[in-house]
């Protein structure tokens, strides 16, 4: 291309851009006007930029100057349109990009979010919510749950004592006994609640934390009901394609005792792996007896899980103290 031709192209584009914008109704929205302008100029402007290389070396300087002048001219045309627009709308510029007048966003605690979600799924599976006291007797916390007195099983639950035989419950399982004493089977309840252990408050332990327990007791309840219900929960909570497996475990108040592992991704770059999600089992006959039920007639299953642990893996929380320190900068991350 000759220099003269290049200059003519540049002039033409400047003039056409001006004409386009001058011809627009000032009520046209700025983004619409820009869209039309871009449709006219973008391809041609890019072509002119490319042509610069093809010109004879001695012509490049003046062609480059013309190219820059063209860009300035287009911007001036656009500014002129914007000015005309403001004038037409009574002289004020409305900046639509300014922020909304927002209120504060509140939030539920991450552990509550997880508990609510778990409860929602079990509600779909026919469960209601039961509660019980946090300060308990040894009887409800241990004896009625088939803990043999002075047995190493007690050491799984390092206990905070309030008196000789009163304590802060070490699990939500006392609610199982209370509920079975209160309501005749069928019983199908979830018991979320705070529990206590004699642990130091550090990155992985808290002396008080939430637990969530479930209990189903009726005639004809079997391990298959336990397995199918909990596996269904896992699929609804973690996703339909997640694999679930059951292995043996031990809790004095269930027999057989089991644990459920789910193949989950902990967002640590290591991919899927088996993680123990909950402990479960068939309600021990001695627990049914302690609640005044005939264990030949009634059977049941129960499970317990730690929603704080689930919240930690789900939300990538590496220090458990963040959950309890109440730093507003942490809590507000959960506002939606």
């Amino acid at each position, binding site marked *: 291309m000759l220099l003269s031709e290049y200059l003519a192209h540049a002039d033409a584009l400047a003039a056409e851009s001006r004409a386009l914008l001058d011809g627009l109704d000032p009520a046209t929205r700025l983004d619409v006007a820009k869209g039309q302008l871009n449709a006219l100029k973008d391809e041609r402007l890019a072509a002119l930029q490319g042509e610069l290389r093809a010109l004879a070396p001695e012509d490049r300087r003046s062609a480059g100057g013309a190219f820059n002048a063209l860009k300035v001219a287009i911007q001036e045309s656009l500014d002129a349109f914007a000015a005309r627009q403001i004038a037409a709308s009574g002289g004020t510029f409305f900046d639509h990009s300014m922020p909304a*007048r*927002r209120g*504060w*966003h*509140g939030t*539920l605690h991450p552990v*509550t979010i997880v508990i*609510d979600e778990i409860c929602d799924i079990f509600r779909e599976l*026919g*469960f*209601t919510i*039961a*509660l019980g*006291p*946090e*300060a308990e007797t040894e009887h*409800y916390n241990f004896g009625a749950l088939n803990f043999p007195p*002075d047995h*190493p*099983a007690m050491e*799984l639950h390092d206990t*905070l*004592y*309030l008196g000789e035989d009163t304590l*802060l419950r070490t699990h939500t399982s006392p609610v199982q006994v209370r509920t*079975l*004493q*209160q*309501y*005749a089977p*069928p*019983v199908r309840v979830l018991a979320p609640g*705070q529990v206590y252990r*004699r642990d130091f*408050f550090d990155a992985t332990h808290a*002396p008080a934390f939430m637990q969530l327990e479930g209990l189903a007791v009726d005639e004809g309840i*079997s*391990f*298959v009901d336990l*397995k*199918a219900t909990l596996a269904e929960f896992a699929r609804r909570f973690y996703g339909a394609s997640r694999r679930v497996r*059951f*292995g*043996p*475990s*031990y809790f004095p108040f269930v*027999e*057989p005792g089991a644990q459920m592992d789910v193949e989950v991704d902990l967002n640590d770059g290591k991919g899927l792996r088996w993680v123990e999600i909950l402990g479960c089992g*068939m309600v*021990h006959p001695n627990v049914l007896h*302690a609640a*005044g039920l005939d264990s030949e007639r009634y*059977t049941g299953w129960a499970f317990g899980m730690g929603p704080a642990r689930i919240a930690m893996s789900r939300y990538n929380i590496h220090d458990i103290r963040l959950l*309890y320190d*109440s*730093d*507003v*900068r942490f*809590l507000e991350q959960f*506002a939606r």
Partner: protein
Amino acid sequence: MIVSHEWLKQFVPHALSAEQVGELLSRHCVTLDGIERVGADLSAFVIAQVVEAARHPNSDHLWVTKVDDGSGTLLDVVCGAPNVVAGHKYPFARTGTVMPGGLKIEKRKIRGETSNGMLCSPRELGLGQDHDGIMTLDTTAAPGTPFLDVLSVADARLDLDVLPNRPDLLSHRGVAREIAALTGVAVRAWPETDLPSVPAAASVHYGSSSVTASGVTIRVDDASNCPRYAAAIVRGVTVGPSPAWLVKRLESIGQRSINNVVDATNYVLHGVGQPVHAFDLASLTHASIVVRPTSEGETLTTLDGVARRIATGTTVICDGDKPVALAGVMGGQNSEVTASTTDILLEVAHFDPRFVRRVRRQVGLSTDASYRFERGVDAAALESIAVFGAALIAHVAGGTVGELLVVGTEAPHTSPIAVRPARVARLLGAAIATDDIAHRLQSIGCEVQVAGEALAVRAPSWRHDLLLEVDFIEEVARLVGFDALPDELRAFRPGNAPDNPVHLAGTRVRNALVALGLAETRPMPFTATGDAHTPRVRNPLADDEPYLRASLLDTLARRAEYNLARMQGNVRLFEVGNAFVGGSGRLPREEVRVAALVMGARRPPHFTEPQPPAFDIWDAKAIAEVMVASVFPGEASTLVPGDDTVVWTIECGTRGRIGHVARVSLDRPAWASDACGIELTIAIMSSDDVASAGTHAHGAITHLVRPPAASAGIRAKALPVTPAAEFDLALIVPDGTLASTVESTLRAAGGDLLERVTLFDEFRGAGVAAGHRSLAWRLTFRHPERTLKEKEIEGRRARLLDTLDKELGIRPRAS
């Protein structure tokens, strides 16, 4: 519990990898917490045979060899070892193999000769420091065979999470029994590779409370704490270093070798699960062991060098004179095996688990031995283990096995339990054939006999957890595998228990407060301060916060301070949780409460309002109203004026005083604004017994009862068809007269047609006398059928002003 994969294989010669064993155990027996490799991974190395070895043309210390690695083509390999000999076999790293040190073996030229791999020295394989030459293998294995198949040098530690019901798994033999049950491979009583044969004891002597033989006496004065005590004598031992295989066994589970005798006792502990203790027989006064009650003021320096006072009222292991061991926990230095020991008395005892637990707590010392005794050992195996232990000592330390002395009664044989196949099917939800049930139970050592419809099953002596039918059903279920049971959602009946109303109220108030822009928190419910009546943790781990809180707002105040210390001045926190109030009962009175604390900007800054006002007590009042409305929907409540700190108390119908709105005092920096808080009791959580133990309180079964909806009392009114008439009243109100008093006077005097009364302004200053304020109300009147006339409105205004003047002495503000 750490077990060695190789040691396990000595007990049960299975062909599984450590990972497969871990998986099998996790699915059927005990959770695997992890696998740790011991030694480098040598799985890539193979056996190779050197076919030719010739001097390197350009070096006087290198060899050029032709190596058969089983691939079919002979490889040229340059080797620098002085001991390379044609015809011999060596460990070989093919090209591409990564050495334990991280070096990758590649094809390369060494002084002009190509080398395709490396013949390896022990040090290069991480198998010791020997680097004098390559490792000659005396094997018939064909070239190409994996090196690990020939020399079992690698091992893996399996970390098993053994729970308190399965003490039988606290040894290699115990875990091996499970692998045997799951694979069908037979388990051995002890590894024949480690101890080729077990000679019988020279003689066995029994006694009910004491026995003497060949000058050695065993006496048990306290049979309840020590039901059975066996002592095996080994004479003529030479105490010294252990043989390499024994060191390796102990190292494979992370245990240090001490000397051959002590190592043998540790082998017994970890091998078969019975804690045993070797006494130096010569150090025992009168060559006696006396298990007797403790006397006042006795002490013992245990093997760890600590002098310990022995508590009275318990039982201690003594010789003819003094204490020599803390039963089940640790031996004493005074009878320790030393380099000069020649005769051993090996203690193999059965102690009552609760007794060992007490001793362990008294001395505050938990050992591998106490851990096993507390959970229960196999009392029926004492004699065979004593003979095995004595034989092992003689095998590794020389000497001869002498007498076996046994005091006490034999462990009572457990009685058979009926296991009904129909009950198995009912509990598991899937039928399992009677034969299969019997076979599974036999595989773990149960004796099974058919007894009519049921099986009569006797648990093996090492299983203390199999007491009830359901315990055996669990065994069947786990051996079959929970994963083998169907995953099939079956029909269920809905439960009789309604939703707990406290939970529902908590959910409502949480959501309402979130909508107001507050963040829920879940702080620790402990506090540093309290009085004699405050519920208190008796055994707090940290002494700084031993009390249970009586107020949620106090907890929130501390959390607000935490935020202020981190320069966060905009704090809007709430919590639903329990407060504990000291009561007269056995347990504290527990109240489920909701509390909120607000401070800082009322709204986020906006360009239209760069500095929003701070939260004040009126915001707190509004939050309180929202709380009450969501916790007790449809119930009327009043905020009764309090004092300067508790600004209002909240009263709600028959519930009485249920909470308060307060200015919260904080330790706060100058830049922070005031904090306001609200605390409201939702309910009292009863901790009374529902019914006495073993009984229930079931009433007649009722249908699930839901509380009436909050909106149930609302009756919609038709929309007005006539226009409203409005006028404003600006009144001069003396301080001390409440706006609410004026407002109720207005409502009373306004008549039926007064529709709405709205306070819209408060003013003090010019034109208003000191000690007074101007309050302005807008009053809206409407007649349901017609438009009100100007005269009627004026009449009402006059009447209202007249009433206000007469009843309250309040006059309108001069305009």
